[in-house]
């Protein structure tokens, strides 16, 4: 099981990195999302893997998953959701302004900007 989870983290990371290195904003954002999944699972596994032991206290039960990483991941999910929304919006704003969704600065737009700016 551990191997499955660890390799899933690795594959999500690899996919994420590959997409982050693309040239348009949209795939890059998707890449970041994949990385976020990877790191959330990674952080989650820092409490190790527990099956059938949700951290909801029940009388007589002593087998619980580590609740702390779960809380941390929950925070991380929320934060990265906010971040995703923001980056999507800024990316959209950049695209609407220049009709170009390259994530890299384009030589010609740079000069156009320089001329266009007051």
């Amino acid at each position, binding site marked *: 099981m551990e191997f499955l989870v660890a390799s899933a983290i690795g594959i999500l990371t690899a996919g994420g990195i590959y997409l*982050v290195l693309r040239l348009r*904003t949209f795939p*890059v*954002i998707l890449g*970041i999302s994949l*990385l*976020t999944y*990877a*790191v*959330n699972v*990674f*952080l989650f*596994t*820092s*409490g*190790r893997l527990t099956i059938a032991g949700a951290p909801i206290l029940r009388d007589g039960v002593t087998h619980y998953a580590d609740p*702390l*990483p779960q809380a*941390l991941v929950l*925070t*991380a999910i929320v*934060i*990265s959701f*906010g*971040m995703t929304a*923001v*980056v999507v919006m*800024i*990316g959209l*704003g*950049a695209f609407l*302004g*220049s009709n170009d969704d390259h*994530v890299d*600065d384009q030589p010609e*737009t740079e000069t156009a*900007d*320089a001329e*266009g*700016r*007051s």
Partner: protein
Amino acid sequence: MSHWIIAPIVLPALLAPFIVLAARYHIGIQRALSLAGVVALVVIATALALQASDGTITLYRLSDWAAPFGIVLVADALSTLMVLLTSVLALFVLLYAIGSGWDNRGRHFHALFQFQLMGIIGAFLTGDLFNLFVFFEVLLIASYGLMIHAGGNARMRAGVQYVLFNLIGSTLFLFALGAIYAETGTLNMADLAQRVALIGPEETVGIRVAAVLLLLVFAIKAALVPLHFWLPSSYAEAPAPVAALFAIMTKVGAYAIIRVYTLIFPPELAATQGLHDLWLLPAALVSVAIGMMGVLAAKKLDRLVAFAVIGSMGMVMVTLSLFTPEGIAAALYYIIHSTLAGAALFLIADLVRTGRGGLDLTAQPPMAGAALTAGFFFVGAIAMAGLPPLSGFLGKLLVLNASFSAPQAAWIWGVVLVSSLVSILGFARAGSILFWKAESLTLEEADPSRSVPRPLSYVAVGGLIVLLAAHTVFAGQMHGYTSKIAGQLFDPAPYMLKVLDTPGKLSQPKEGH
């Protein structure tokens, strides 16, 4: 229990939503509230710094849970100094933002500004590593908003890159935190320090990777080459007061490195031997070189200043990488200097932009309000390039002096001094083009958008310059204080005792330490 420690976090955190709720459509009320908040922040920060100045460490247990089970804030000399620096900087930056009208060129400037302060100050005060992550995110997301404040294509494009790069950084932070928790089972810094020491020599892989990942996270914040790429265009494109406020953000990274690598992974820790000492210094030296070369290479004034910030962060990191009390003391002195100087220069660049209509380093007719702007630029450039008599020079002396006995002293001295020369060249070239060459052109060719900066803008910049001067005149006291802080950092026992031995709800101090 005194609640003053949390006041610098809660005050802006309450003020910001209040501004959003009550004063969304009234810039005047927003300004008044924001300014009042920052003034109060300065007062509180001063009081906290005074309280901590005699070595007192104050603990604040959030939700009343004791460390390491709950989150704690720790006010020691270092954290309160950084909080004070932040608030004072914020005051002048805010004055400038109001004076120049930048705050009214988009929505929610003041709310975002307050949130930004909350994030930065929280990062300085927290004693918990995951909480540090949360505050990093708060300060980052507020910075995204401030960075793209007022919009515009170039700014937006730079904003995308800035956000994306920092998202990678945040991801990395979480990887580091996961590794840390997996290895140690805790998140509190003091507790971590204890637990990391328990790790035996036979099983160091995990903690080593964690230590390095954490350092990389902070290195991104501190804009250490080659993780600095986010900085030049985002600082250059950000609205001037925002860029000026950002001058403290790189220091958050430096602060975190100082804190974590004196407390949790001190230089003598066996498990993490041979890590950062291997490449931190080279990276810092390259940062100095890149930064200063950038000053010479830049084609626009705002980029020039951005590169100067990279260079000055390099200087900080050079000294930090020694991990000696002298080095930390010098780094702290330099941090204060570079924050003030960087901020001042960003604002001065905006005075130039206002008076001239653009920041291209090409000859253009004389700018409006040239004399005062030129004077400020001269002083700011002297400070940043590390020329006497200002604090940049003194900081440079401290850096060189602290690194004298390091094995790589020749490298450090060589790079620092040669880069200084390059940056002097760069600043001289820029100043000469902006203020001297302009005299040979006639006003008829001037940009129509040029206008005289408002008096309040000058007051704000002047205030920062005065602070720089004070940092110079009282260099002895400041350096004495930073040395004291360094001493406190290299003797972490009282810190750990304070954090871990203070009981909280349902918990008594642990036995045996």
